[in-house]
């Protein structure tokens, strides 16, 4: 009887330690998850900012200005447009 009780006691202690370690591990993982989610948010923000930057560089007035002034491009008119499409 006594021996049985001792075994039960040991099992209880073992389980208790198990709970403690798994709780600890869960919290560690949770923190990791938090950090990653924060990073994802940061990247999302950065993505938005980059998109904004891209649309600023790619705005039509700027492109037209560069095309006309720096690259000396002209709009094709019908005389130089091939009519093979029809």
């Amino acid at each position, binding site marked *: 009887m006594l021996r049985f009780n001792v075994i039960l006691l040991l099992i209880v202690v073992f389980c208790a330690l198990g709970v403690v370690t798994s709780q600890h591990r869960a*919290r560690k993982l*949770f*923190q990791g998850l*938090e950090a990653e989610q924060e990073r994802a948010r940061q990247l999302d*923000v950065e993505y*938005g*900012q980059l*998109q*904004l930057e891209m*649309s*600023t560089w*790619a*705005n*039509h*007035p700027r492109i*037209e200005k560069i095309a006309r002034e720096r690259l000396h491009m002209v*709009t094709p*008119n*019908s*005389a*130089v*447009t091939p*009519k093979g*499409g*029809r």
Partner: protein
Amino acid sequence: MVVRRRPQRGHRFTESPVLQLALQGWRSRTVGLLLMAAFLALVARGFYLQVINNDFLQQKGDSRYLRDIEISASRGKIVDRNGDMLAVSTPMKTIWAIPADARTMTAEQKRQLAGLLDMNVRELDGKLASEKTFTFVKRQVSPETADRIGAQKFPGVHQEKEYRRFYPTGDMTAHIVGFTGVDDKGLEGVELAFQNSLLGRSGSRTVIRDRRGNIVEDIGATKPPQDGKDVRLALDSKIQYLAFSQLKAAVEANNAKAGGAIVIDARSGEILALANWPTYNPNNREHLSGAQLRNRAITDTFEPGSVMKPFTAALALEKGKLRFDTIINCAPGRMTIGSATISDAHPHGALTVAQVIQKSSNIGTTKIALSFAPKEMWDMFDSVGFGQAPNLGFPGEVNGRLRPWKNWKPIEQATMSYGHGIAVSLVQLARAYTVFAHDGELMPLSLTKIDDAPPHGVRVFSPQTMKELRIMLEMAVQPEGTAPKARVAGYRVGGKTGTAYKIEGGVYARKYVASFVGIAPISEPRLVVAVMIDEPTGGAHYGGDVAGPAFSQIVGGALRTLGVPPDAPIQVAEAEVGKGKL
């Protein structure tokens, strides 16, 4: 003191010298009762804390480590049909302070903070002199600057996340996109019209934080944040740029007060471009005037003038009263109805119905119009959408003015046939022209991109009538017509000019609204384009001279952008090469 006596016979445990003292019984009972009372008090206190006051204490305990965190949601983006950004929110920081705490900063710290915030120290001191417990130091600070401020750990200075709205396309799309005020509230344009779907709803979560402020555990249900939905407009930013820059050029070339331009996809009723001049920069809204803010194309009405004539002609053809080539005598260019006299800008002789439209004869149109009963004409105007808001869901849409037919006088019926005595907005006019482009069906307009099958229009005229009307509209841009400058190299286009007097104080002033509304390409209409120039004072004031060239540029560019194959016979191009127009 009791004298200790030696027990006489062995041990007698039951006998204690203390017991031999005859203490009175009430003393022990009193002590017992006092102890009992103390116990009861403890039990009562315990009961009070554990049962009655439990909630309060539990809450106090939780607040030591539980935190409610708000998860912010961002406002939806506004993009054009190809996904180009028109409005986007990006996080910024607000720097705020508790003035009483912040005043403990050293002079050196204040100088640093002011430097980082791009303010001068006196300005900063002014803000911190406030007696309130909270003051904004600066809003909309860039995240990088905010991080640097955070690293300095200034006493009493805190920061909070907020969003700022950016409009990469700026003044080009200002009127259609609109803008938001503080706290993400849409104030104008699409930002206002789609406020409900654009708005993000922030979520929240309850967490346990440890001593170091790390989040250790989620407690209970998390309410996820709902980011605002993106709105995809029908707008094509390339065509919008084209319309905007051509409109601006036309307004400046004609020294005009204002202008508007609309491009509609005739197949689906989507608004591909909507531009107004003057405009403003939505990213920097200081010193704004009402004139800049007005979205004229949608919220302003004007008497359209001759652009209404094709509708009168269409009704005559539809009712079988006249044919395409029925001859109408327009001589001598003047006509008296009641006490009023109407006249043509250039007197004509006998014209066919088609030529009446081509040459824009007021007399011819009047003669056509007077053959209708007023109700017939009112019904036609009503069925192409005049006198009713175009139902875009856009703030400030107007109905225009179409008076009830019952009290029309003959002169009014006559002037209405050529667009006076009736007021419409540019968007209504463009929409009405979809009947010519869409074989007689009036298309519902859409601000947003239509992904599935385009909606069905409402049939107003028969396809045969429309075919003939398109020929008339094309004739108007021929050299003999009113708008040869509206022609587009490589494409067959058609349209109608309008040159209307403006009413000032109830009388017609010598100020004009020049307009041109047209469709292209004629062989298979794809676009409806309307251009309106308000008060041109640069010499020319006729619709064909003022609005026609802008129409031509917008249509040509838009058709190329959309990849519509040219439908004009090749000779036109060759003729132009011959004329050296390359």
